[in-house]
Every structure is written in structure tokens, then in C-alpha cells.
């Protein structure tokens, strides 16, 4: 990524929550005015889902610390998230939207519908997540969303 712009956030939950992330993204959008509104809220939705999942499901009771880097370039936006939570025991391949009246289970399929890549690996005692979205594209349909495990 030439001329990439990087924003970094370190957060600890609790007390931080997804509101902390929204605040960071406001500054990202100010610094990267080339991003179209649809790209912004598609990426923001995916990233809030990811961080929300980590805060909700990776906390073993002692809290979760996260380091988040958001990289913006002319044609792509990426987020690299590492967290100290429990291993992300989540299957990324073949995830489908749950039935209409189910109240949960949409987070990962929604991320996959919004970005081009979602990867996860466990390394050095940390969970490492990455999402990447090509700018100017359309969201994926839920049925064709890619499922990539890093």
C-alpha cells in the first residue's frame, strides 16, 4: 500500500467498548476524505461487529486488551486487530445467515458480506484478526461471501 495512512488504537474492555472504536473511526474518516460514504459505513459496520465479537466472546472474566491498526490507502482499507482474549474458537468457512427469527449468529456472516477478506490466526498467545475491503466495490451477497482462514 503506497502512501497508506495508519491509525492505531489500544483499548481495554472494560471500560472501553465499541463506542471507543466509533470515536477512532470518526478521525479516520476525517483523515481519509477520499472514502465514499458507503465504503465508510460498510467497513465501520464490519469492524464494530468484529470488535464487539471479541469483547463479548473472548473475555474470560479478566477483560480483554486489544491493539487495532486501521490502514487506509487509495484502493483499500484494512484493519488488523490483536487481542489477549481466549482463543477464537470460531469457524469462518461456510457460515450462513441464521433463520429469520434467530436473535444471534449474524455477526461473522455479516462481516463476510461486508468485506473482501476476513482472516484469523492464533499466534504468540494472541488472537490476530484482519479484515480488508477494496474501495469502490459493492458489498458481497451473503451467499457469495468469502470465508478465508489465515
Amino acid at each position, binding site marked *: 500500500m503506497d502512501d497508506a495512512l495508519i491509525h492505531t488504537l489500544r483499548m481495554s474492555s472494560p471500560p472501553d467498548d*465499541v*463506542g471507543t472504536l466509533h470515536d477512532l473511526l470518526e478521525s479516520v474518516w476525517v483523515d481519509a476524505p477520499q472514502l465514499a*460514504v458507503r465504503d465508510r459505513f460498510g467497513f*465501520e459496520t464490519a469492524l*464494530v461487529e468484529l470488535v464487539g465479537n471479541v*469483547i463479548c466472546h473472548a473475555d474470560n472474566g479478566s477483560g480483554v486488551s486489544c491493539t487495532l491498526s486501521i490502514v487506509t490507502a487509495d484502493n483499500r482499507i484494512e484493519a488488523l486487530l490483536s487481542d489477549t482474549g481466549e482463543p477464537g474458537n470460531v469457524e469462518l468457512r461456510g457460515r450462513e445467515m441464521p433463520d429469520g*427469527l434467530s436473535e444471534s449468529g449474524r*455477526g461473522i456472516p455479516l462481516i463476510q458480506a461486508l468485506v473482501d477478506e476476513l482472516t484469523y490466526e492464533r499466534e504468540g498467545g494472541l488472537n490476530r484478526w484482519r479484515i480488508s475491503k477494496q474501495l469502490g466495490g459493492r458489498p458481497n451477497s451473503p451467499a457469495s461471501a468469502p470465508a478465508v482462514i489465515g
Partner: protein
Amino acid sequence: MEFTVKEMDGGVAVVRLSGMLNMVAASLLRVVVGSTVAEGHPKIAMDLSEIDFIDSSGLGALIGGLKTTRQAGGDLRIAAPNDQVRLVLQLTNMERVLTAYEDAETAFSNG
């Protein structure tokens, strides 16, 4: 998230939400719907015109509210979502379950 509840003719309650409908606000939304139904208003029109952002937790709370109202013989209808909310409804295949009306105050005008 903040909210107000306004009773309309015909027993319909208009719940106007503002702010972020996310994992932090989802539990509050469930309480608001539950108490509105318990007070005798199983028909709820959810005005989303001032909701800036929704995630899957907020969507789950809306679906929970829909089930709560239907179990009481009513319904929950949403109105005036912004483009981000519409995108989430579209990508989660929820547009037919949570049909978006233009205006909360007329969402139940056809019954």
C-alpha cells in the same frame, strides 16, 4: 441510545430511538419493548430516523422485540431507517421480516 414512547390512537405505541443501536443498547431496547407490551401496547412502531448505526446485536434486539409483540397478539414495525440500517437489513436477509415503513406514525394505518 436514548428513547421516548408516545401512545397513538388505536393503542399503537411509537418508540423513537436515537444514537447507536449496538451491543451496549440492545439490552435497553429489550426492556423498553417488554415494558411497553406489559403496559398494554403490543403494537409498536419503532422510529429509527435518529438511529445513526446498528449492528447485529441491535438487530437481534429488534427481532426479540418482534417476537415479544407477536406473542402478545401485536406486531413490531420499523420506520425511517438510514442507509446503514438498510444495508444491514439487506445483507442479513431481514428486509421481509422487518419491513421498513416510511413513517412510524402511519406504520399501522393499514391495520
